[in-house]
């Protein structure tokens, strides 16, 4: 029953498959098609379920909208800053936790807590740390003789604050993935090198890192996708009404949300979501190509 396709196997398989496939079809697959259709609706009456005109106008509107361009620029900025910073930091932390097992039992929860905690709650605490007058960030700056900074109130600091919060927020998940990867490496290689007298850095550089290549590519792809989807962080950090002072922390997904939720522009929101999705898809393909070329 396992090796050749048969009607017997099909009859046995379907009861197992049905529930999950129904949910995926209705809430995972169908909406993709419907969203595409929505993005083509130019003139429509949603309440009466009538479409008067279909076309590509929503896409041209989105690409000419300065707000969407700002959102795109910010999102790309997030990808090139948060992804490398978070990956380097989380790899270092995971490597450390891996080599110091005794200490790591006590430290692991500290790095996983941001992963477990609600982003709304975490952002509330960060908003307090970032407070211009009373916040700890500025208190530290004052102690170092630096001028106070409007972390969440001045337009030019909106993105740096968002990057800082995003790196902190994404660390735990990456640490978890790296830890699993590190534990899958057979320890003999490292042990042999240690007996040969190789010190920590060369061992890491020549043994651990090459053996971790697959995980590294996986984490980089997942991180890029996550950074591209940045919404929660903006929403929670800046209080949910604006995307930061003067909208300076606007991201693509935030743009989609606003068009959909506040402005009820379903067509434009879907077009923006699709444009963003195609971009991240292209980016992932480039990453996969790179990993193929290097034999990942």
């Amino acid at each position, binding site marked *: 029953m396992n090796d050749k396709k048969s009607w017997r196997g099909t009859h046995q398989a379907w009861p197992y498959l049905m529930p999950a496939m129904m949910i995926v079809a209705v809430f995972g697959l169908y909406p993709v098609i419907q969203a595409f259709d929505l993005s083509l609706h130019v003139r429509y009456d949603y309440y009466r379920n009538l479409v008067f005109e279909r076309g590509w106008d929503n896409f041209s509107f989105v690409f000419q909208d300065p707000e969407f361009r700002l959102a795109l620029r910010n999102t790309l900025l997030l990808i090139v800053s948060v992804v490398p910073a978070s990956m380097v930091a989380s790899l270092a932390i995971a490597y450390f936790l891996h080599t110091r097992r005794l200490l790591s039992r006590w430290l692991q929860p500290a790095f996983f807590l941001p992963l477990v905690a609600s982003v*709304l709650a975490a952002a509330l605490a960060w908003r307090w740390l970032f407070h211009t007058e009373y916040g700890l960030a500025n208190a530290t700056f004052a102690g170092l003789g630096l001028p106070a900074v409007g972390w969440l109130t001045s337009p030019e600091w909106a993105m740096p604050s968002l990057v800082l919060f995003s790196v902190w927020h994404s660390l735990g998940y990456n640490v978890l993935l790296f830890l699993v990867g590190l534990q899958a490496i057979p320890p003999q290689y490292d042990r042999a090198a240690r007996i040969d007298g190789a010190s920590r850095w060369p061992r890491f550089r020549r043994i651990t890192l090459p053996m971790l290549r697959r995980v590294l590519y996986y984490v980089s792809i997942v991180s890029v996708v996550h950074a591209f989807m940045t919404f929660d962080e903006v929403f929670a950090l800046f209080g949910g009404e604006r995307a930061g002072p003067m909208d300076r922390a606007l991201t693509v997904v935030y743009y989609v949300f606003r068009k959909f939720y506040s402005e009820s522009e379903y067509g434009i929101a879907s077009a923006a979501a699709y444009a963003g999705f195609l971009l991240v898809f292209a980016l992932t393909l480039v990453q996969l190509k790179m990993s193929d070329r290097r034999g990942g």
Partner: protein
Amino acid sequence: MRGTNENMWIKGFSKPTGRWAGLLLDIFVCALGAAMLFPFLWMAAISLRPGDQTMSPQLLSSFPLEWSNYRTVWETLPLLRYFENSLLVMATSVLFGTIVTICAAFAFTHFSFYGRKILLAALLGTLMIPEQLLLIPNYMTVAGLGWTDRYAALAVPWMTNAFAVFYLVQVFSAVPREYRFAARADGAKPSAFLWKVVVPLCKPSILTLALLKSIANWNAYLWPLIVTNSKEMRTLPVGLLAFSTEAGTSYELLMAMSVILVVPMVFLYFIVQKHLVQAVPSAENLKNES
């Protein structure tokens, strides 16, 4: 703890300077861990301050601690109702979602059936799709089904997805084929093989999946915000969101509410923690089970 003993045995081989560098590294990473916890520490500290001292730069600004903040939150908000909603939605969604996902993944790894390739390809296609793209059409679907403001709208749509199915397909295919042959030779039904062999074998991975689902479900606020209208249907995060616009500058109350939101997931994490990182199927799990 096997690893630690080996480390100690090997230590004589490394250079003596390594020990001091190691100690420095220990201290540095401990400090980093503390920094990670810092926002939560402040959250807890502020939630225990009197209302006029929330802005104090000292961690513990006053004694005695103001435990009454929690009572105030309890009295101003229908917390019990929020808790009930959150818990009910999470429990049903995670329980049924996990079972449904297990069954589907089992079908893919255990049976050879017509349409298998097409189904896998369709699943793979949905893997890359951002959740936010689904938000609009799913909202319309739910509204069309008449589910707005009902538990079904909160629990059903995100029960399972392609990622969860794929993850378990990967995990289940690592179960040695010999087990399957043995079960077949003994005349075990597929369902018996699934629940008595496969599931116990892969318990850590299933737990990991369930934990990630629980966390995502408990903390979700955007979807519940969109599909609920009435106060009675709010989950905890939506309650916190509404409260943060109502409470204004009462930081101590907001922080107390945040602590209430965070603590249950921290507990859950500690309960399943020891299974998390060893999420690879092994014969040991089966032994512990019987």
